[in-house]
């Protein structure tokens, strides 16, 4: 064991942690956009980027929402996120670019006409086989 010369490993874990948190349903694209914006602003301080990510979300109530805010919240069995277009007097929020992600234990769907994208389980082996070790 020796010391790490950069704070990037910690930053990666922080990004993963944020993406995993159920209470703050974070769209991965938003998260990565923000990480890159911070990286462009302070490319020499990955440790401070990790600290910023811990403060990335704030809890606000409906009355504090402004048009243009990126918001997300958990709904039964899924997540909603989008950009606030308008907050109505009755407390309903209309969103633009809204995404509703639902999760189901099982689902039967029709496949795409063309091809699937499959997540590779063996990407390291494919890319750099000499770094793959026996269990």
């Amino acid at each position, binding site marked *: 064991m020796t010391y790490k*010369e950069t704070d990037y490993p910690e930053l990666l874990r922080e990004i993963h942690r944020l993406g995993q948190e159920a209470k703050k349903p974070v769209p991965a694209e938003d998260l990565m956009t923000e990480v890159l914006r911070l990286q462009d602003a302070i490319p*020499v301080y990955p440790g401070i980027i990790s600290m910023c990510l811990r403060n990335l979300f704030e809890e606000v109530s409906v009355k504090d929402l402004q048009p243009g805010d990126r918001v997300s919240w958990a709904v039964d069995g899924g997540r909603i996120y989008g950009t606030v277009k308008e907050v109505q007097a009755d407390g309903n929020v209309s969103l633009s670019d809204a995404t509703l992600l639902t999760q189901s234990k099982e689902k039967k769907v029709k496949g795409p006409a063309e091809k699937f994208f499959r997540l590779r389980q063996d990407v390291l082996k494919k890319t750099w086989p000499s770094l793959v070790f026996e269990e």
Partner: protein
Amino acid sequence: MTENKQTVSLEKQTFHLVVGPASFRLVEGGPVEVIGKALTTKETTRVPEGKKMPLEVKGAAKIELSLDGAGKIEPLEARTIPASWDKIVDEIIKRKAKLISILGDVDVGKTFFSTYLSNRLLANGRKAAVLDADIGQSDVGPPGTLGLAMLHEPVLFLSQAVPSDIYYVGAHSPNLHFLQTMSGTKRLIERAFQRGADHLIWNTPGWVAGDGGRDLRKSELEMMWPDAVILMQRKGEVEHLVRTFPHDRVIRLEVSKQASPTSADVRRKLREAISVDYFKNRRLLVLPFDQIKTDRAFILTGQQVETKDVRTLYAERLPLWEGLQVVVKEPLTAADVDKLKKEHNVFRVKQVLAGSEKGAEVGLCDDNLDCLALGIVQRIDLEGKYIECWTPLPVGKEDKVKVVQFGSLRLAFDGREAGFVEPGYL
């Protein structure tokens, strides 16, 4: 800003603390000692915001004092310099310790002690030099550099000593700049002894914990192997740095009760003021490509090539797998990049946005890689084949500039901080 000028009588054998922003001058009487230096009636001392100066009145004296804003003078019960410090000075002289490393957390008084030690060594007729390796809170040389000063007379601030040599690191923190920090430290230590120093006081930055802090401080100790390590700590908090270092070279130093924290805000202000002052006599310098070589950047290190892509202003083929570096008017699409890869048979295309070099801070070095001055890039003209930069380099020295070293700092042309350049971007 309120300013309030007054003459203050100080009784003999008393101690006082001047808190900045303030300035003072000895009018009559004395001696009055500050950080091991005796005041004269000729010089006015300015204490900036965030700094303070303890006065030791050895004989009754009158001082003229101006206080700005939060500036003040307050009586002290006792000397702020622990008696143990003087024993350490004697010890260093007795041991003939040449390289003396000062290690400790931020705000424990490393700069203060370095100043005191320098002044005491000078008073003992020794040739003292200071290597200021604190690139974020620079005392010697501008921020982002390591600075070496050969001391000829006692000083109250190390910043009053004229640097004999500076080394451009290119950042305010050694984080992501370990190697430059190490090579620069090595070069300037050798330089100090070539210049005839009996003792070199090596003041290190207060990054002493965590992976990076431990790694850098420990590797530096291994590489430079100082004759004495002065450990400044309150409760043993930096012992971890010297666990494997010869224990007879480690000297533990009591931290003064007066050592107090400086906020990140004040640090930035202090740093920026030094930078603005450094660049105040700037002029625009044109460095033709055929006079200089670029360093710590990819740009101008490969073979220039032509491309069919109309948005590419300039392209060069870099060595081996580094691929193609292109300077573009606007970011290329993935399809454009693919075309370029095919056209030039490379795996990578590295894009630099035209104009993004503006404000990049650079070190201007001679052919021995000694830093002559810093510069702020106005532009790199790839057609005209020159780099234009703002620099306080003295007139007549422009022909000496042979190497332009890039770093990670971005400045406004007057020296104010304006952000960063990603390492490896240019």
